[in-house]
């Protein structure tokens, strides 16, 4: 009976073990798939399209409104109409809340200055009126109450002869400094600037008004001024774009570029005032930037950087978003389009709620729009969560504001609203590969050759000690390595580059020399040492070599590099030297990867069947021949996977690169400057990325990319390993 007991228990244990192992394996597969699913769920919304929907239409009293502004909660709309009244209506039901006459008479043109909080109009008698509109939010209990208010209007006299004005532009800032520009009856451009200065002693505000004139080459169809009141842009009926700088008060020399023969019908500036959107009679829609004439130049010219699909009729209204570089455009026959400049995306096009719109406003939170016309006001809902991202912005070159040319840039966020996020993953991919390359450059020879020596030549007594020792290296936390590399190693390497260069030549030479010297010693002398102890001789030799290199560093630097390696590098190759560079990371990350490669490769070498080795030796091959011709090919699948696992580790390594490089997202293979990797980038930026934002999802996309890279590498590695194994299984 007892004889049967044992096998049953064993069977049970056997089965249990199989279940536990299978369950464990399955759990790993499920959790990896779970992680993949989670990443995909977070990335997916990046691809979602914009939705534009007319929510409701309410009547808008008074004559046609030419300019509008709403509060950020979209509860009220203030509209400026040709009769010189601002009417504030409730967006929910069209109830007239406020009707204020600006006291300037009838208006010939109306505008909402870009980025401004004021409505502007040009009067029949040569003046420009600016009325700041505010929406005060108070709380009654917990309910929010919005109270619209129109402040006392500013009136600026542009034409002393009080004739009706042509195209006009105006701006007012929070301190009451206002500038208006318009083409007056004779065709000249008039600019009036009102500035205020508060006297600190008396508290009185002194007001001064200056007036300038400048020639205009043709009849202006439209004018627009940036929020800083420093640049003025105009469009002509001949399709020219004009640009004056107002920084000195007096309009600067006119700069003129042509946008094609079709008349300019609409002009506006995107948030930040650097991108000029131009709409034309033939429906063309383009974005222009101020670009330096050459990299070192101090002068700029307007450059057409993007064209959007043409509207079927003349573009009448362009309205910028106040959250990012998006804008809305409305054409004469009622086509409405939603665009995003940076990503060059046409997010939505369709018919406006009615065909004759006179005023268009993109709400402050970019979540809706208001369209006025035909005595009605239409409230439009816009859902457009991630307009900044396309494959092009993620992986291609993009022409950003303030850049001389299109480029790959990663600068994801900043402290101001008008910042243009630059989310190119290309520099990060390059950085990841650069870091991996330089660390494997160190880790592969050391790891593989070290393993080869340890398993094949070293005395087993030392091997028993050495192997665990190397494996302990792997247990060093990478944050410690990164810290040491960044703060201790980097400044020392900066001084020791010539010594390192010298070592690359001197150490191998010394080793070879010692090898030959050792062999030429009499066999009787060599026989006194245990085989496999030669390594200690080499330790001494290498230590001496390193010491020698450091001693020779300075004379060598003087001789080969003219006294300073960094200067030599810059002058001969044009490359910069950065203290936190790829060499430092290569050393630190190499240190982290060596034990991994070593451990797996050593196992691969040791697992080569002894009968193969014995057979080879018995046939007369010497030790070295056996290792290179028999052991190495047989172990090659294992070595290959060792290298691949080392590669995977280096690709995903975060803390070392985070701390030891400057995290500079540059795209150069120069070993003496830094880089920024995908993983370090995620670690650096995820805490600041608001949940669900574009940056947040882009970082998840970076994670997905890392996942794919590792997955691909592992799959390829496994396939190659299988093939190699098949090939060498006959040995």
């Amino acid at each position, binding site marked *: 009976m007892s004889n049967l007991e044992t096998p049953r228990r064993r069977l049970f244990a056997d089965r249990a073990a199989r279940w536990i192992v299978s369950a464990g394996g399955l759990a790993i597969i499920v959790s990896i798939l779970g992680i993949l699913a989670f990443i995909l769920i977070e990335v997916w919304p990046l691809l979602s399209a914009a939705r534009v929907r007319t929510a409701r239409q309410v009547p808008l009293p008074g004559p046609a409104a030419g300019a509008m502004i709403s509060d950020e909660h979209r509860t009220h709309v203030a509209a400026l109409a040709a009769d010189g009244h601002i009417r504030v209506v409730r967006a929910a039901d069209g109830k007239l809340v406020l009707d204020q006459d600006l006291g300037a008479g009838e208006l010939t043109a109306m505008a909402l200055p870009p980025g401004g909080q004021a409505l502007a109009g040009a009067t029949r008698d040569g003046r420009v009126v600016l009325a700041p509109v505010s929406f005060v939010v108070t709380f009654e209990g917990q309910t929010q109450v919005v109270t619209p208010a129109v402040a006392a209007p500013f009136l600026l006299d542009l034409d002393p002869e009080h004739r009706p004005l042509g195209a006009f532009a105006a701006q007012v800032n929070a301190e009451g400094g206002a500038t208006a520009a318009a083409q007056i009856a004779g065709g000249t451009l008039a600019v009036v600037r009102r500035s205020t200065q508060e006297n600190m002693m008396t508290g009185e505000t002194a007001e001064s008004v200056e007036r300038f004139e400048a020639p205009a080459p043709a009849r202006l169809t439209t004018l627009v001024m940036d929020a800083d009141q420093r640049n003025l842009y105009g469009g002509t009926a001949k399709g020219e774009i004009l640009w004056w700088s107002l920084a000195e008060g007096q309009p600067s020399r006119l700069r003129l570029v042509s946008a094609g023969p079709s008349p300019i019908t609409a002009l506006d500036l995107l948030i930040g005032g650097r991108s000029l959107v131009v709409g034309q009679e033939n429906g063309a829609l383009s974005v222009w930037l101020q670009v330096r004439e050459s990299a070192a130049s101090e002068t700029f010219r307007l450059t057409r950087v993007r064209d959007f699909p043409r509207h079927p009729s003349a573009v009448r209204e362009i309205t910028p978003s106040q959250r990012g570089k998006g804008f809305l455009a409305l054409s004469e026959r009622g086509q409405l389009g939603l665009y995003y400049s940076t990503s060059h995306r046409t997010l939505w096009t369709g018919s406006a709620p009615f065909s004759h719109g006179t005023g268009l406003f993109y709400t402050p939170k970019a979540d809706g729009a208001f369209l006025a016309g035909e005595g009605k006001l239409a409230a439009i809902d816009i859902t457009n969560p991630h307009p900044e991202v396309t494959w092009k912005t993620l992986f291609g070159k993009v022409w950003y504001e303030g850049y001389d040319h299109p480029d790959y840039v990663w*600068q994801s966020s900043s402290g101001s609203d008008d910042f243009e996020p630059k989310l190119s993953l290309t520099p990060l991919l390059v950085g990841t590969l650069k870091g991996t390359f330089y660390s494997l450059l160190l880790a592969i020879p050391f790891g593989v050759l070290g393993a080869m020596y340890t398993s094949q030549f070293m005395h087993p007594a030392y091997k028993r000690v050495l192997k665990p020792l190397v494996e302990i290296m792997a247990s060093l936390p990478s944050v410690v390595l990164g810290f040491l590399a960044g703060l201790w190693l980097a400044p020392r390497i900066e001084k020791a580059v010539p010594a390192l260069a010298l070592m690359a030549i001197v150490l191998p030479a010394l080793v070879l020399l010692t090898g030959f010297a050792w062999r030429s010693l009499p066999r009787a002398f060599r026989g006194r040492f245990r085989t496999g102890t030669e390594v200690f001789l080499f330790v001494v030799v290498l230590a001496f070599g390193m010491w020698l290199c450091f001693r020779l560093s300075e004379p060598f630097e003087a001789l080969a590099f003219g006294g300073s390696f960094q200067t030599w590098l810059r002058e001969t190759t044009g490359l910069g030297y950065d203290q936190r560079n790829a060499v430092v990371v290569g050393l630190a990350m190499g240190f982290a990867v060596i034990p991994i490669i070593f451990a797996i490769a050593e196992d691969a070498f040791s697992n080569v069947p002894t009968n193969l080795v014995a057979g080879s030796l018995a046939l007369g091959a010497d030790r070295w021949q056996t290792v290179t011709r028999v052991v190495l090919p047989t172990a090659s699948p294992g070595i290959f996977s060792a290298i691949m696992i080392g590669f995977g580790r280096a690709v995903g390594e975060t803390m070392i690169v985070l701390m030891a490089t400057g995290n500079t997202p540059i795209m150069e293979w120069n070993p003496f400057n830094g880089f920024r990797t995908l993983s370090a980038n995620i670690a650096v930026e995820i805490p600041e990325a608001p949940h669900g934002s574009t940056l947040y999802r882009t970082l998840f996309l970076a994670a997905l990319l890392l996942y794919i890279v590792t997955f691909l590498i592992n799959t390829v590695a496994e396939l190659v390993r299988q093939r190699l194994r098949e090939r060498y299984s006959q040995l």
Partner: protein
Amino acid sequence: MTQNLKVAPLALALALAGSALSAQPVQVDSAIKGYAKTSGVSGNMNSVGSDTLNNLMTLWAEGFRKQYPNVRIQIEGKGSSTAPPALIAGTSQLGPMSRTMKSDEIDSFEKKYGYKPTAIKVAIDALAVYVNKDNPLQQLTLQEVDALFSKGRACGGKPIANWGQTGVTGPWAGQPISLYGRNSASGTYGFFKEHALCKGDFKDTVKEQPGSASVVQGVTEDRYGVGYSGIGYRTSGVRPLKLAARKGSPYYGTEASEVYSGNYPLSRFLYVYVNKAPNKPLDPMVREFLKFILSQEGQQTVVKDGFLPLTAKTEQEELAKLN
């Protein structure tokens, strides 16, 4: 003579605290009242946000815990941009920030709570441009600072790549400039970009450090380095430059008098953001902590950490926001 003897211990105390580096020791306005302890304050509180304010928050928390031993405060300082997500998610009650919130951050907050977050000014900082202590350079214009750090030179200066182009002569002139800065989560990064770079972009070669202390450490170790950080992080290994707002205008240092007068072009307020529902009192622990910060003791801590205390007028305005 007796007067001198009285001053000596005070000066010594300030020197030990590391702020007597500036010419005159900074005094907290005596109109700011001392902290009056109340009862019933206990519990846990989290602070997530600015790295610039990190040391200061820790010191305030220590001082506060002396008053209320049953209070526990956890402080995390990875950068100002980490404050809004944590405040919105409700994982922190205090959001120290070295810049004001951006509109989209306020949007997200408002979307969740229906009202805007409340910003309390807690200290004044002079954002300093540090060079290595051995660097002969004394001063720069903001335009030159922009040309050093930015790609596009939006402020309109000439490109600068080596120390010679900043006006240094001798052996330093040919040396290239090594740039240190903060990561983009930092409010200091955002503030510097907006006020020193005319909103232009940083060069890709600016080494992004995770904290203010790392920037200073980097410049200390790197002879040809230059970086920016709050004045509270000044050490003996670095020296803040004098700055001029534009070419031709005078250069001002980071001394208290120049910062208060607004002459130093990169002075700024430091904030703590809190979630205060309109017409509802703040959580007593948060309220008392902010009151402590705005008290004589709290503002002396500011001086101790190397930053500048609020004026009595600002302090009164900020106190009023708490009720």
